[in-house]
């Protein structure tokens, strides 16, 4: 009999059903990979298991007994630990305090004080199991992301978890840290602990999981032992169509006119001797592993962060003292990877968000008042151009929009300025397939109108499908350049990992994870 058995789980939010009967089961000592696009219902399912949400229908059996957690604490007490993507650790507390934050060993039943000696001993045992060698009294703030992940696992072990759920555990880990995590998962499997592993990195899923379940639109669309689920099959199940349909035909070819020239840009500890030219009508991709310095470069180019040496020129004229407003005046635009944190005012209307970067252009010269009618008309026009689907941009708040429509708001904000150089940092992260396609079309129209687009993406397929040229960054440097026609995902990946020495050599197969 399976350890965990979910049958026909249903869940609705505000009358809209998002889980339509999800079923799967999990045995002791096995790792189940749960894959699916954002919004496919992975998180909802796991939140039900972890006690964060209550299910509306279906049943869950844990070890043969009905399982209905009243909250995260209850779920934990029943042996189900949920390690969230954003770690639940307190940086101001020590490792041991984090491990026991809700169940400190006390000096005695009636004595309210913490038994520090016992806490330390138990913490040492737990940390040994996850290979952490820091003293238990070390503040968590001093640990790396990977080590924090391991502390979370130790926390799960501290309550004798029988099922551990990992939600995108590797997003902020380095290659080496991820390998270390996989080693621990391997070891836990050996001890009979069952695990559910959620990830977009299909290479990882293939590497460490025993079984795969694919979700789409709140329902299970396929699954089976990992040997029967090659990556291509997972993807086609996830998206419901084959890959080559995903990209629009490019309507224009790049010109020879440079719009952005970057020469020898260096910032110690961040990027080194960055050198490239972006032409009008060109989509230039930047590939690389997480932490290769791509976003940091984008921020430097847009004047958000400083650099020590080198020049950045737009239309042949160097930018002195770059800042976002200076760069914007020169025709640059920047779509950030952190949409909620840096891209949008979530509690403001669509129109207010779109107008924010163009206020000066719509200010009357004398009073500095915003010319609201002119601005409103333009906002409406641009909204249509990006196919914004919202009733009234003047009244709808951005936080009520889907991820895809939110991203269109950010795009519209910059399109309103008619940029000549558009830096896009992960423009399709966290949005659904349909909206992705529309964003690709917007990019195509933009370059067809003569702009240059610098596109950072972690999705290799996206870069290959859309770009005219791809630069590969790693270790803060540009490692290689590929032209359309020479694109080869294997070679691009090889360049992205070159010089990473031992790390890359240690796990060549696993490095595929960045590719998908």
């Amino acid at each position, binding site marked *: 009999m399976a350890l965990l058995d979910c049958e026909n789980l249903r869940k609705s939010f505000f009358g809209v059903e998002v889980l339509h009967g999800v079923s799967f089961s999990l045995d002791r000592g096995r790792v189940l990979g749960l894959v699916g696009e954002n919004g496919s219902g992975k998180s909802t399912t796991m939140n039900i298991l972890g006690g964060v949400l209550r299910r509306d229908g279906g049943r869950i059996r844990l070890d043969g007994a009905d399982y209905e957690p009243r909250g995260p604490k209850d779920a934990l007490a029943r042996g189900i630990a949920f390690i969230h993507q954003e770690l639940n650790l307190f940086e101001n507390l020590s490792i041991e305090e984090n491990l026991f934050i809700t169940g400190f060993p006390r000096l005695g039943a009636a004595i309210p004080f913490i038994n520090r000696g016992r806490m330390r001993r138990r913490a040492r045992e737990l940390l040994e199991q996850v290979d952490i060698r820091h003293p238990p009294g070390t503040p968590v703030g001093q640990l790396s992301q990977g080590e924090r992940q391991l502390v979370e696992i130790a926390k799960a072990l501290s309550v004798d978890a029988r099922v551990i759920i990992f939600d995108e555990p590797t997003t902020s880990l380095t290659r080496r840290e991820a390998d270390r995590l996989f080693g621990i998962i391997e070891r836990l499997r050996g001890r009979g602990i069952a695990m559910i592993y959620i990830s977009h990195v299909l290479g990882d899923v293939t590497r460490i999981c025993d079984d795969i379940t694919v979700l789409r639109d709140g329902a299970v669309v396929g699954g089976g032992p990992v040997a029967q689920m090659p990556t291509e099959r997972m993807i086609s199940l996830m998206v419901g169509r084959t890959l080559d349909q995903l990209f629009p035909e490019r309507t224009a070819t790049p010109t020879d006119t440079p719009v952005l020239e970057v020469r020898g840009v260096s910032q110690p500890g961040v990027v080194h001797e960055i050198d490239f030219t972006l032409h009008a009508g060109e989509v230039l991709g930047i590939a690389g592993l997480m932490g290769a310095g791509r976003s940091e470069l984008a921020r430097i180019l*847009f004047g*958000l962060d400083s650099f020590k040496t080198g020049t950045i020129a737009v239309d042949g004229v160097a930018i002195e003292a770059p800042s*976002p*407003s200076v*760069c*914007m005046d020169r025709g640059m635009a*920047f779509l*950030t990877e*952190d949409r909620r*944190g*840096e*891209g*949008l*005012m*979530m*509690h*403001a*209307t669509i129109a*207010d968000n779109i*107008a*924010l*970067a163009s*206020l*000066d252009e719509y*200010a009357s010269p004398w*009073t*500095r*008042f*915003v010319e*609201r009618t002119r601005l409103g008309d333009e906002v409406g026009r641009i909204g249509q151009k990006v196919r914004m689907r919202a009733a009234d941009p003047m*009244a*709808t*708040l951005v936080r*009520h929009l889907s991820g895809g429509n939110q991203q269109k708001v950010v795009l519209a*904000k910059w399109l309103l300025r008619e940029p000549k150089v558009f830096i896009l940092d992960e423009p399709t992260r966290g949005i659904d397939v349909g909206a992705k396609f529309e964003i690709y079309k917007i990019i195509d129209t933009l370059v067809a109108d003569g702009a240059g687009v610098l596109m950072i993406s972690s999705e290799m397929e996206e870069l290959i499908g859309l770009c005219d040229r791809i630069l590969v960054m790693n270790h803060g440097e540009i490692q290689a350049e590929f032209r359309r026609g020479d694109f080869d995902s294997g070679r691009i990946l090889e360049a992205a990992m070159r010089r990473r020495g031992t790390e890359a050599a240690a796990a060549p197969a696993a490095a595929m994870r960045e590719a998908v």
Partner: protein
Amino acid sequence: MIATSIAGEARPSGPRRLLRHLLFSEYLVLYLSLAYFLAVLPFVPQMASAEVMRNILSDMLPLLVVAIGQTFVLIVAGIDLSVTSIIAMASVVGASVMTGDGGYLADSALAVPGAMIAMVLVGLAIGAFNGFCVNRLGMPPFIVTLTTMMFFSGAAIWFTTFHTETSSIANLPHGFVVLGQGNLGGVPHALWVVAAVGIAAHLVLARSVLGRRLYACGQNRRAAAVSGVPVGRVIAAAFLISGACAAVASILYTGRLQTGTPILGQTILLDIIGAVVIGGTSLFGGKGKVLWTVFGVLFLVLIDTSLKMLGLSLFSVFAIKGCVILLAAVIDAVRTRYAARF
């Protein structure tokens, strides 16, 4: 900006609909003020007299000017506790310039304008210092303005000791006193000034580029910076405006009292912040309007006046004021949570 966007949801009928309409209305605090006025009228019929109305108005005016300045700071998610010390400091500095008892410009034709310029400069200078510390030095506004408040409250008293043996600087020129108490076309000078400040502030917030940027900085500072908003300068502008408004309030208060006194405004700090918050401006930034602040100040002054006229003791005035602020905050919290459901 926020409240109006709720309209057009599924509509329940009858009294519930009216209640919802009221709850989400921008004019909620105005309605409450009117309701309150009507409710106390049977107990204190004099409230409706022209005399009392005039008093309410003249109590409102200086408070309103400071509160408008505070609104700017709250919109950028800051807070300015130093306004009362600005009022005090500007008052004694202004008085020291124009007093007949050995003022720097005593008996000169420039005494009154000179003093007023000096007062506004004091406000701007302290506001600029606050803005500098918050922006450039990255210090939290609460602490920065708390220390400037402590410093300049003390400094105002100290400054006074150089100019007079008594606790305040008297013998202000006739021209200044007339300015504070006279009227133009039947309308008191103070009202002209406050109306001008209010309209200007409203236009800046509602219509100008700076206004849009103030809201943007309050809603999401990082997003504003990425969109090319000069965040530092915008926040500094909010503190500057707050300082200048406090200085204008100081001119009005000083004119009314006819002396420059260092304890001027000492007790009104909580009234100021309370009034702005009652109006509906959020302490967390990104939300607020001049009109809301006008209503908030009206409500607070109305309660103050009525309670005094009811012959209630000081303690009741305190306690009821507290309850009103609390009630306003609870309504705002309910409103926000209700709105979040859609």
